[in-house]
């Protein structure tokens, strides 16, 4: 491409660095502060003292509780058990509280200095007994960090040559940073093979303006229009009970480097409806306009829907209709999953695709893109059936077709898994496949067993494939794989994984090694 936009990689590294700095700043702006909860004695027995609080969420078993003895806090009880609002405690020494006495529980709480004022309105008294509200209130005020850092090495050796790929990924989600209305979400991927490539898929700071509106800034993948991918810029969503409106404005990541490219401006608007109280089922539709250096690159309407019909049928669909240079269905995906019973499930999906045409960015390839624009389609059907508590079975069928007759493919596969086999799990698979050049069959078996208190999982496996070429006369070719992979959960979210397998085909050996380190936090 003559117009290839060469945005400095440093921008990506800066963005990645900002994510890290932001993460640390979240922690650095936090300090410890002592708070207290006040409850009362609700019942007294010879062994235990029963207490009642508005909420026991912050209470920890084994901690000490105090009573006021002539206005002096005196250690009196030790916390044994707790429920959401009630506790069971035992006496410490000669302390002997009576029903109705006030009890004090002191604890240290991390508080964001900058947002401390915002938290003042949130006290224990404001928490309703309603469990849903209780949960909501917890989500609103408590910082929650969920993240994953993983590094992996994939190495393949064969024909006297070796290839390796190193991958590092960081997924970080901080909800209600330091108890504030700010949240941060990021997902970055660094891949190094021939060259190194850092891709920031998401790095977005969100602010809950109120319970019905969220404003986000940064690179974000819109949950309301997944097919759009990420957009760098401003994202606003306003919710009105069952309905919502979304706006996105900014730039599209560079199609070659995936860096920020302000030459590719993009804006869109979406409208939608929630189908359940959790707002996890939605239908959204909208319009997106994308331009390159002021000229329209793409303009389309989209529709995305997911919902559950009754208790057992869930559906998902996504569609894009190009509106530039005529109407053209660019993509339609629909899937349905039906749970006929706790043992039997069906699923089906269809997928229709045409080329993604960017009229300005791909200007030089436009002619060939338009000329070579077959409709690609696929159909997938599957069912799974739990034969017994130990036996699981299933079958799948998929078919691919292209309107110009190329790239046809069909696949039929089945599996039978035994969940309790020699102390482990045995999985057996079969597949029959046919593409343009050959048909091939695959049979595989895999045995997984856990050791060391389920911390270590070891899975030896074997697979055999048999290929028969259509267009030249050779005997069917057999391809064999043997390998083992293992996962070891060390502790505190740290998992080590390793895989080795080798394959043999007509005496040629290939070796494959994969090592992963995954830290959840």
């Amino acid at each position: 491409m003559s117009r290839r936009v060469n945005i400095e990689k440093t921008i990506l590294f800066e963005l990645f660095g900002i994510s890290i700095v932001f993460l640390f700043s979240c922690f650095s702006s936090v300090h410890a502060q002592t708070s207290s909860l006040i409850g009362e004695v609700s019942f007294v027995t010879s062994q235990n003292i029963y207490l009642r609080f508005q909420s026991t969420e912050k209470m920890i078993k084994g901690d000490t509780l105090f009573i006021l003895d002539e206005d002096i806090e005196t250690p009196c009880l030790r916390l044994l058990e707790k429920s959401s609002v009630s506790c069971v405690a035992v006496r410490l020494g000669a302390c002997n509280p009576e029903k109705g006495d006030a009890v004090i529980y002191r604890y240290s709480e991390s508080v964001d200095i900058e947002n401390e004022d915002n938290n003042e309105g949130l006290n224990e008294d404001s928490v309703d007994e309603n469990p849903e509200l209780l949960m909501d209130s917890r989500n609103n005020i408590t910082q929650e960090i969920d993240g994953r850092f993983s590094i992996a090495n994939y190495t393949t050796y064969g024909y006297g040559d070796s290839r390796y790929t190193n991958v590092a990924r960081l997924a970080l989600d901080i909800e209600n940073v330091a108890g504030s209305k700010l949240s941060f979400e990021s997902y970055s991927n660094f891949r190094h093979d021939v060259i190194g490539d850092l891709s920031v898929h998401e790095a977005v700071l969100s602010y809950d303006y109120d319970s019905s509106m969220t404003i986000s800034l940064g690179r974000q993948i819109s949950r309301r229009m997944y097919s759009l991918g990420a957009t760098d810029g401003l994202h606003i969503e306003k919710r009105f009970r069952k309905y919502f409106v979304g706006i996105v404005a900014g730039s599209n990541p560079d199609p070659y480097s995936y860096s920020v490219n302000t030459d590719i401006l993009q804006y869109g608007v979406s409208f939608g409806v929630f189908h359940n109280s959790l707002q996890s089922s939605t239908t959204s539709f909208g319009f997106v306009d994308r331009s390159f250096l002021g000229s329209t690159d793409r303009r389309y309407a989209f529709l995305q829907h997911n919902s559950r019909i009754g208790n057992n049928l869930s559906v998902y669909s996504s569609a894009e209709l190009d509106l530039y240079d005529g109407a053209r269905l660019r993509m339609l995906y629909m899937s349905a999953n039906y749970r006929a019973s706790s043992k039997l499930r069906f699923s089906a999906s269809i997928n229709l695709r045409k080329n993604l045409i960017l009229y300005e960015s791909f200007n030089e390839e436009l002619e060939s893109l338009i000329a070579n624009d077959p409709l690609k389609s696929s159909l997938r059907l599957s069912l799974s059936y739990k034969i017994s508590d130990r036996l699981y079975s299933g079958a799948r069928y998929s078919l691919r077709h292209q309107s110009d007759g190329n790239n046809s493919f069909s696949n039929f596969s089945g599996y039978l898994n035994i969940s309790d086999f020699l102390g482990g799990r045995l999985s057996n698979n079969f597949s029959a496949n046919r593409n343009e050049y050959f048909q091939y069959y695959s049979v595989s078996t895999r045995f997984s067993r856990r050791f060391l208190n389920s911390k270590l999982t070891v899975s030896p496996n074997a697979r055999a494939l048999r290929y028969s070429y259509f267009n030249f006369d050779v005997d069917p070719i057999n391809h064999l794989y043997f390998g083992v992979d293992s996962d070891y959960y060390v502790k505190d979210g740290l998992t080590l994984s390793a895989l080795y397998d080798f394959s043999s085909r007509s005496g040629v050996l290939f070796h494959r090694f994969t090592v992963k380190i995954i830290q959840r936090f």
Partner: protein
Amino acid sequence: MWLLTYSEDSSVLAQTPHGTSLSIACEDCHNTSGWEYIGEGAVFKHNDVGFDLVDGHSYVDCKKCHSSLVFEEAESDCISCHTDVHSMSVGDDCVRCHDERNWLVNNIPELHEMNGFPLLGQHKLAYCSECHKSESQLRWDWLGNDCISCHLDDFMTTISPNHQLSDFSQECADCHSPGAESWAGAENFHMFFPLEGKHDIHDCAECHLSEDYDSASPECVSCHMDDFLVTTSPNHEDLGFGTDCAKCHLGDDWEPALFPDHDMFPLVGKHDIQDCAACHDVTDYSNISSECIFCHQDDFNNTDSPNHVESGFNEECVLCHTGDTWDEASYDLHDDLFFPIFSGEHEDEWDSCNECHLGPDYSTFSCIDCHEHDNPSRLAQDHRDEDDYVYESEACYSCHPDGEE
């Protein structure tokens, strides 16, 4: 502890925060210490509701999926909890590629097999990014399994031979095996013209004299015209042989050669011989006639039963010898040329030639040795009106040339 029931009228049910579908006893998950979930001691197993909590899912805080205490409200489809970083390029069914252990996939070969492109040969060593070129590295655009969608550049830039100039097919697998180690020496290479035997050569330039490999004709003579012209045994040019060498030369070498189109003289039956010299003067293949007698004069001369020479037989052997052997002879022309024995009075009256032809000279015959004519006096009496009657076979024939009375 409450025992929950399905009945909506139940006062007990009204106290549960877990919705109407969860029909298990409270103590399956809670104990008298409080309403905290008791964890490992719980009777309730998550896989009872058709969603096994294994590996990664077993580490997740319940609230990540169950944002309310009505557990049934949590969706079981992946995309309800997990962000689609693939821009809806692969649908919503994460488990087609991922498992619960982590998002980094192990089963890369299997995934390719399930999608119509098994990783064979050099493809096993390929970097993902060599084929999957989406900008985000995570959008898996539909590539298909046709080679050219990835190898168009290879096709366009190859100069030995120049694929584009040579108008080669863009179906790479017509020549190159997807499972080969390299483009060259692939198992399926040159299958349109098998490089076997003497053609098992590795220097393309021996046949392809220019970059335009399409200019090389698959016709043998395009390379072997010199061989054709200089061959003297037989002299292909003088004899007007065709230039489709493979019609005769089927083996790994020029010799031995067959001549399957020996149409001027079909090589069947006893003539199905492989040694040309049995008939041809190998110094001059043109010095031959398709007349039988050209080769079989000795047979003709030496045959004594009947003696073909003395009998004055026609040298057109096929007049009598129509089968695969000499013995399978018949002489259907006897009626027309000499005497009707396959029709008329003598039809079915004889079993062998020597009933009439008493000697090796078939030009002689006997009528009077037949049992009907072996009484001279009776025959003389019968011919008393014939002036020149004689009791001789030649005389019989002269008056009764068709055997009729």
